């Protein structure tokens, strides 16, 4: 069951969760995600990666659904399309590790200079712009999927618009798509790993955002999986659903406006605000989703590090509320800001739960520090626009990862990042990130990123609030659903069904 109609199944342009979910079942890139979210061979059976580039050796038995072989040319064609400015792909940036990709995408270089070549039908050679320590993970991402030139050209503007306009090389083929209503994916007998796929069909019989309707359909046995909203947890407990939790990798935080004319540019004020926040209380009382973790740093628990998880290798002391420190910092801030703290403008959107969220902080800041918060509530797209333009003191922000590396989070707060809406800027921070980006040596990279994180935290660039967990349930007869942080989620490729009841 999907929340919304998949907006874009053209893999060179997809950006959203629904489309990536479907593409993950219809298509296969050089690599794919395995049962434990690890990278496993896909169309490529083996590869060599070093600081300068990578070579992928494609398996000879991989076929498109019409029987033609999947070749290195299909990747070259797709990747050129991604960075082609005329294609206006919003995710083109994820291909920037490939040499000349950024230049082509910004119109400075010619399209055929992309450093990806098909040495022969089954060998794909890639040169890097600079060493990329997480390139292998990228090859499983939707934007890196292959597209076959002759098929694409034959379908022109209609490519991926309807079942006959999309061709699979993955475990399933799209056999039915009634826009806004339902989709059916059927097993692809020509998929090279077809004998490992036990599922005959994936049906998406309903598309609705209404949480109550989704819950009722699940209770009625019409759908096999269910995301459970915060308001429904009590009902789910009463109905004895077997609930599971899944860290989806998203972090949420308070972002400050660091532009010089803003009160939040003052370090002492930011320190005071951070010291007064009790993240554990916030998570248990406001977020109130079992399993959610209080935020501590820039990099959440799930992210891999050198050998284990990054957070285990570079642990942080957990944040605790310190009212005395907050009051001291507040006095320092008042002195520097001319005697008093002006009211702060808190930008937020009209999504579910945002009122609870902002009112909680409004209350705390007023009661403990005497600071007034004016809430500026906008529709989602307008919230985005206002945050880009810097029209706020504080904005509720969040970030979902694009790849499985701390870089997807720490790069956010570099002075050159377009998503750095608060314009946080620190030369030492930038230097550490550049250092991490210049090498593929995991020890050096991770070390540098951990040091950068320390700087941002000492500066209170942001206040980490929580790491999101989603609660979900599945019917007892479904086995082997895999949840991924990155990539198609949930992953039904290796699901088996036992007899109902």
């Amino acid at each position, binding site marked *: 069951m999907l929340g919304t109609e998949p*907006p874009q199944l053209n893999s060179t342009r997809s950006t959203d969760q629904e489309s990536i979910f479907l593409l993950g079942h219809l298509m296969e890139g050089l690599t794919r995600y395995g049962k434990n979210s690890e990278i496993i061979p896909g169309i490529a059976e083996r590869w060599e990666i070093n600081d300068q580039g990578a070579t992928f050796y494609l398996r000879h038995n991989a076929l498109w659904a019409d029987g033609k072989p999947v070749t290195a040319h299909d990747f070259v064609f797709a990747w050129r399309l991604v960075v082609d400015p005329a294609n206006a792909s919003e995710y083109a940036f994820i291909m920037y590790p490939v040499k000349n990709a950024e230049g082509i*995408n910004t119109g400075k270089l010619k399209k055929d200079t992309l450093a990806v070549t098909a040495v022969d039908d089954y060998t794909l050679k890639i040169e890097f712009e600079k060493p990329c320590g997480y390139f292998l993970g990228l090859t499983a991402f939707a934007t890196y999927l292959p597209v076959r030139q002759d098929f694409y050209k034959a379908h022109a503007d209609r490519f991926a618009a309807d079942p006959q306009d999309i061709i699979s090389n993955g475990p399933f083929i799209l056999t039915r798509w009634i826009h806004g209503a339902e989709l059916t994916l059927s097993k692809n007998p020509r998929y090279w790993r077809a004998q490992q796929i036990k599922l005959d069909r994936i049906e998406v*019989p309903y598309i609705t955002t209404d949480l109550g309707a989704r819950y009722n359909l699940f209770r009625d046995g019409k759908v096999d999986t269910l995301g459970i909203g915060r308001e429904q947890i009590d009902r789910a407990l009463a109905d004895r659903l077997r609930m599971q939790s899944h860290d989806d990798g998203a972090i949420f935080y308070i972002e400050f406006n660091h532009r010089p004319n803003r009160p939040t540019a003052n370090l002492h004020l930011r320190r005071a605000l951070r010291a007064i926040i009790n993240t554990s209380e916030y998570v248990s009382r406001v977020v109130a989703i079992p399993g959610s973790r209080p935020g501590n740093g820039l990099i959440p628990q799930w992210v891999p590090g050198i050998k284990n998880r990054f957070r285990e290798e570079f642990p942080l002391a957990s944040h605790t509320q310190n009212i005395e420190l907050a009051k001291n910092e507040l006095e320092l801030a008042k002195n520097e800001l001319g005697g008093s703290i002006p009211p702060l403008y808190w930008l937020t959107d009209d999504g579910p739960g945002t009122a609870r969220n902002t009112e909680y902080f409004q209350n705390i800041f007023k009661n403990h520090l005497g600071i007034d918060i004016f809430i500026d509530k906008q*529709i989602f*797209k*307008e919230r985005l626009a206002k945050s880009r333009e810097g029209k706020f003191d504080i904005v509720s922000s969040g970030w979902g990862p694009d790849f499985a590396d701390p870089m997807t989070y720490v790069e956010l707060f570099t002075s050159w990042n377009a998503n750095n809406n608060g314009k946080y800027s620190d030369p030492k921070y930038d230097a550490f990130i550049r250092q991490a980006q210049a090498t593929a040596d995991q020890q050096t990279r991770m070390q540098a990123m951990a040091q950068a994180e320390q700087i941002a935290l000492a500066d209170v660039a942001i206040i980490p609030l929580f790491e999101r967990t989603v609660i979900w349930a599945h019917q007892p007869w479904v086995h082997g659903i895999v949840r991924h942080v990155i990539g198609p989620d949930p992953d039904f490729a290796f699901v088996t069904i036992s007899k109902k009841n």
Partner: protein
Amino acid sequence: MLNYILKRIATGIITVYFIATATFVAMHLVPGDPLASAKAMRPEIRANLEKKYGLDKPLLSQYGVFLGNMLKGDFGISYSEKNRSVNDIIRSHFPISAVLGLLSLFFATLGGVLFGAIAAIRRGKITDRASMFFVILGISVPSFVFAAIAQYLVVKLNHTAGMTVLPVAGWGTFSHMLLPAVVLGIGSLALQTRLMRSSMLEVVHQDYIRTAKAKGLSPLRIFLFHQLRNAILPTVTILGPAIASITTGGFVVESIFAIPGLGRYFVQAFQQFDYTVIMGLTVFYGAFLVGMVLLVDLVYGIIDPRITIAKRNI
């Protein structure tokens, strides 16, 4: 008569033109950016997208292009469903909303006329009081509350029966349509019951009813041909706008019952700031409303020969 219809069509076109212009102006005045996305876009990519949607042109020429395309019946490509044209969205989703809407209106009108008439005839009695109680309930409780309750009850029913008595949600067969049509029609039914009751009350005391009784006509004949026919006009009046609003405005009910109708596109388009869909749907809805009002005016003449529209010379 033909003259009158032509005149009405002409004023209708002008109305639709004003609706289109007002929507266009409003959409460009309110803050919001249809291309905004959660992840920042390179200026170069943004420029490409603006070119694709014609947003790079000055506002006046955008308006010109919009009007030109509208005349050709082309509303452009959706911003959120990037492979679909607005026409395609209307073509595939309006019929579903229309079927649902007409079914619910059929239920609402039939029920409303019947209950209203009965309540009027039995004025002050228990049936009248009971029906008025339900009318207040039907008018004041929003349809999504009825929808949620109805759906919850169906889940319980199916669970108890151990089989699918009624589908919980979805679309396709008549059994899928039943529950949403009833839920969608409740508000309209209540309103029509009220209207019908008051207009019926006026009619029952008219002289011609007494005359009919004195002639010795059967009560059923009096009810059907003397009372009902004369009292039904207000119901017909609200039918035009009701058809238009119910066939396009069932978005909450459509969302709860997972029905792929046009209603949800209305809401989604506004939330996502999908310019082309907002504009296309507003113009479509405006034209539909104007058409329905015209149709109702013509039906007047058929129901009540005293109203001869052609001579009214509007």
